[in-house]
């Protein structure tokens, strides 16, 4: 069980970095101040969401690493 859980978690753990300001979206933390619950994959973040630091759109993010 724990193994499956970890795999699942790892899949969701891809961080995305704002190419404008360098902010990193961490799915584990989400962005609760702006209505994105902790544990939300970047792909599932609403398209209307913007970078909480600089206001860039989702299209300006790139996967970290």
């Amino acid at each position, binding site marked *: 069980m724990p193994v499956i859980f970890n795999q699942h978690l790892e899949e969701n753990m891809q961080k995305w970095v704002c190419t*404008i*300001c360098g902010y990193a979206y961490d799915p584990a933390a989400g962005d609760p101040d702006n209505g994105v619950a902790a544990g939300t994959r970047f792909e599932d973040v609403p398209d209307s969401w913007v970078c909480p*630091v*600089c*206001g*860039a759109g989702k299209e*300006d993010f790139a996967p970290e690493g």
Partner: protein
Amino acid sequence: MPAIEIKKNIYWVGAIDWNLKNFHGYAMARRGTSYNAYLVLDDKITLFDTVSEKFKWDLYHQVRSLVKLEEIDYIVVNHVELDHSGALPFMVDKIKPEKIFCSPMGEKAIHDHFHNKEWPLQVVKDGESISLGKRNVTFMETRMLHWPDSMFSYIPEDKLLISSDAFGQNIASQKIFDDEHDLNLLLSEARHYYTNIILPFSPLVQKLLNKVQEAGLEIDMIAPDHGVIWRTHPDRILEGYAEFAAQTLKPKAVLVYDTMWGSTEKMVKAVADALTEEGIDIRMMSLKSFHHSDVMGEFSDAAALVCASPTHNNGMLPLMSDFLTYMKGLKPKNRLGASLGSYGWSGEAPGAIARVLEEAGFELPEKPLRTRYVPAHEQLAQCKELGRTLASAIKARTQA
């Protein structure tokens, strides 16, 4: 310097920093700069921005020539960077304002700068308006132009945009309006400022310009926080920003280099000769003579960057490292590059430069080129060959 009325009952009350040469420690400002602040006399007397702490008494006396400080009701903080907020604690103490307006990110930045102040901050959201009596102020968030807290204040009744750092230039002059200066010089200074401060955020500038256009804002004056006020040519600086943000490139190459005994400089001259023969506009810039910010000012509209350094202690010379770090951070887009240099026995510098250029997204049509010790005619011919290949790539890119 007296306060100057820029619109009926709206005054420039800023300070002029005639002697500044190094702007914030990273960019040269050879014409000095100004810290512009504006005072609106209305039912609610409002001060827009302040100045650098060093100039707080200049601001004080400017304002005091118009009103007593305690008569001021509101302060608007469009940008928390210290050249505009350094005098803020001093002015808040004198004014004791009813409200201080700032953006959501501005509130955080004010707390992180000034700590534990019991100030009457009022956060305004993008598009929110307040009334000053006869006038209204609409706030527009302009995050990362050029800090997260940045915002514009727009006064529709006066068609006045108080634009914080956007549209600014580093110019110290008692002539505070655009029509009192040569327009080309102003646009050139605005480009230098843009390239060294706002270039990394170009995608956001394009979005903002679209937003301003869609909102149908009538603008007949743009009052930035540095340099002159655009009262006659606001359209020209808006067009200029659209062009700077699009990074429209010319068939031009900047050849930036450092050299020890002149070998690398000879190689660069050979590349420059070939580029010139192919009709490419060139600028040769030794980093011993040109500051990294002035190189970037020239590179702003150039399709290609040639970087050259001899190898020293298995790497490039430190001025080239400095330049590349600075250049990469400004994120120029869609550029061509080349690297070269002389060496004695190991020759790592051209390869190390090429790696940085590739990381920065440059396309390199030729491999790094190096010459042992002093280039002979044959090696200079190779440099010219590199120049010709680069010229073809520049033409293909700028004609497309």
